């Protein structure tokens, strides 16, 4: 019933705009290529058929740092070349000045979106971008190995450590020399911020910088979390984990060489594919927490914003609404397995049938933890770098967690100055 209301309202909205607007040539810049882009083209064709507008895609390489630099150049030049930008979840506050406030234009539908996603795109009262799709990590585990050694799925990080150690030792004794207990993203980059934030938050160590702007990272719980993580390296995780990003971790785990892996949803379809060594041998669960604190999963994803400098703002907003409408999100979820941003799509039967993991991901997405990108505003990237550097130093055995966090706090204070 709710679905039909959404459908009706989005169709009505499109119809309303279509009748009032004159035909415009729009440009959308899109952070990914390949299958994502083919699908976007398909949706744009649908949009073009419904309206008089035309839309061209300006493609970008997959690396978000490359994209961010280029976007900043365009925006700084106040270029009207691009109307709609696809923004990474953490950019909203850093580029907010350059984007149109979408909240008056989406008032009728914003309640249907996953709240964490909307929160991550709201800077002050301004809605910088309308959530397009999400990303959230989970704990991937080898159910065959857990069964073999009669272990249950760990719900705390300590349990994970113990189980990983046990299975690793037993398997190695049995001749499986290449096996490791746990792989994650430990390279010094944004991914480590995500990983480490999850450890810290689930130990009750707070959010690095709280939503009100206070720096809270230098606390005992956070230190405990990082110390535990440091104990993994070289024991249950290979030393190389310090240079692993998503694909390196997946490579190790998917060739059957690790018991547990922390990774994003994209790995699910690949791990379940025909030539995967762990096909039918794995399952996913929410990330572990601690006693007394629930697990935390970092919120990822990409969202659509309309540039202030666009000469066709009305048509651009119409496009953003269309690309995030129920039908389109459903299609996207089925084809590319991106977790949608509309609550209702998670309950859609067809989606559940074709992408069985999407309903599984709803609790993960609901509890997802945004990075402190809104609180730290334009300084987020630097804050994140300082945080991952401190985490990386701790993991590498370069100083204890307590020492590194103390230094980190000093650096963040210096960075913050009077206010973020």
């Amino acid at each position: 019933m709710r679905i039909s209301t959404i459908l009706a309202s989005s169709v009505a909205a499109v119809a309303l705009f279509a009748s009032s607007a004159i035909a415009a040539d729009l440009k959308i810049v899109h952070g990914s290529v390949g299958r994502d882009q083919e699908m976007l083209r398909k949706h744009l064709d649908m949009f073009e058929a419904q309206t008089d507008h035309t839309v061209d895609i300006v493609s970008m390489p997959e690396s978000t740092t490359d994209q961010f630099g280029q976007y900043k150049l365009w925006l700084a030049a106040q270029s009207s070349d691009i109307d709609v930008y696809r923004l990474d979840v953490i950019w909203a506050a850093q580029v907010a000045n350059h984007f149109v406030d979408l909240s008056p234009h989406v008032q009728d539908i914003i309640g249907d979106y996953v709240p964490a996603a909307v929160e991550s795109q709201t800077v002050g009262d301004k809605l910088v971008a309308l959530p397009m799709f999400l990303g959230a990590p989970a704990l991937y585990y080898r159910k065959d190995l857990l069964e073999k050694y009669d272990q249950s799925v760990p719900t705390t990080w300590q349990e994970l450590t113990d189980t990983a150690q046990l299975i690793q030792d037993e398997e190695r004794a049995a001749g499986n020399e290449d096996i490791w207990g746990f792989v994650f993203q430990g390279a010094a980059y944004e991914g480590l911020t995500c990983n480490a934030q999850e450890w810290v938050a689930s130990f009750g160590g707070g959010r690095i910088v709280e939503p009100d702007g206070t720096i809270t990272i230098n606390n005992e719980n956070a230190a405990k979390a990082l110390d535990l993580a440091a104990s993994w390296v070289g024991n249950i995780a290979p030393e190389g984990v310090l240079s692993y990003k998503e694909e390196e971790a997946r490579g190790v785990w998917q060739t059957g060489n690790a018991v547990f892996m922390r990774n994003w949803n994209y790995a699910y379809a690949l791990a379940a594919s025909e030539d995967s060594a762990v096909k039918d041998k794995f399952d996913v669960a929410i990330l572990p927490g601690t006693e007394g604190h629930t697990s935390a999963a970092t919120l990822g994803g990409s969202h659509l914003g309309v540039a202030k400098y666009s000469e066709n703002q009305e048509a651009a907003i119409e496009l953003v609404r269309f690309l995030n409408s129920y039908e389109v999100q459903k299609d996207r979820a089925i084809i590319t397995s991106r977790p949608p941003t509309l609550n209702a799509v998670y309950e859609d039967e067809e989606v559940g049938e074709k992408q069985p993991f999407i309903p599984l991901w709803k609790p993960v997405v609901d509890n997802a933890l945004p990075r402190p990108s809104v609180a730290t505003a334009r300084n987020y990237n630097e804050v994140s770098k300082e945080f991952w550097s401190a985490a990386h130093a701790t993991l590498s055995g370069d100083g204890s967690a307590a020492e590194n966090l103390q230094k980190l706090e000093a650096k963040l204070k210096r960075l913050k100055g009077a206010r973020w």
Partner: protein
Amino acid sequence: MLLVLAAVAAYPLFRTFYFGFTDASLDMLDSVNWVGFRNYLEWVDYGDGEGEFFGLLVDEVWWQSVWNTLYFSFVSVSFETFFGLIVALVLNANFAGRGIVRAAVLIPWAIPTTVSAKMWAWMMHDQFGILNDLLMKLHVISEPIAWTASSDTAMLAVLMVDIWKTTPFMALLILAGLQMVPRDIYEAAKIDGVHPVKVFFKVTLPIIRPAIVVAIIFRALDAMRVFDLIYVLTPANDDTRTMSVFAREYLFDFDKFAYGSAASTLLFLIIGGVTITIFAMGKTNVGREN
């Protein structure tokens, strides 16, 4: 024509110098305030008699990256010159299949840096990289090395890839120099029974010295600006962060365009200084021999 080009090329450079003295943010390049040397050095008084210096000149991370850059450039250019000379001498000799080998030697230089850096990252992966596999099969190492992860080997890994990649550049420039050496000198030396090694040091080397000096200068300039290789292989690693990587972080990733511009300015001055030094050394050597 050349002057026009130089003027056009200088424009972005002077803008960078200028922004180094302002509070520019990439967001608002039109409205900037002059702040003097604040990006370089500034005394911040906490009001209670205590205070601290801030700015690039007291930024440890910056000086670490200056040191990394100089170390990287010195080691890589030295090895590249040495290997390049050997390769050039080999290619200058007459032997069957020389054309093929010449083309083969150029391959490392021909593959786009971003691709070859990724390729090596893959080959140096600790778990399924071929490099560890090979070294273990040869019993050089007993357990896999996490090349790009550990701080002991990260610089080594970067150097290895850079030397592999740019030796062809050196080799080709030196080879072109070798081709200018008149053949009959060798003939004469052979008839006189002078040892080939002596011929090399007394005849060949002095003739090709200018070519080598120019090659070294351009390689050094490139090495001191090294960016993509490190950016792909070991991003954000304090042990391998170079001046360019540092500048990029501030210019584009962080909201501190001015600080990044100041870093770029210093970078330019440091490179200029090193170039003049190399030049002075090259010149005095030549002078002495004359």
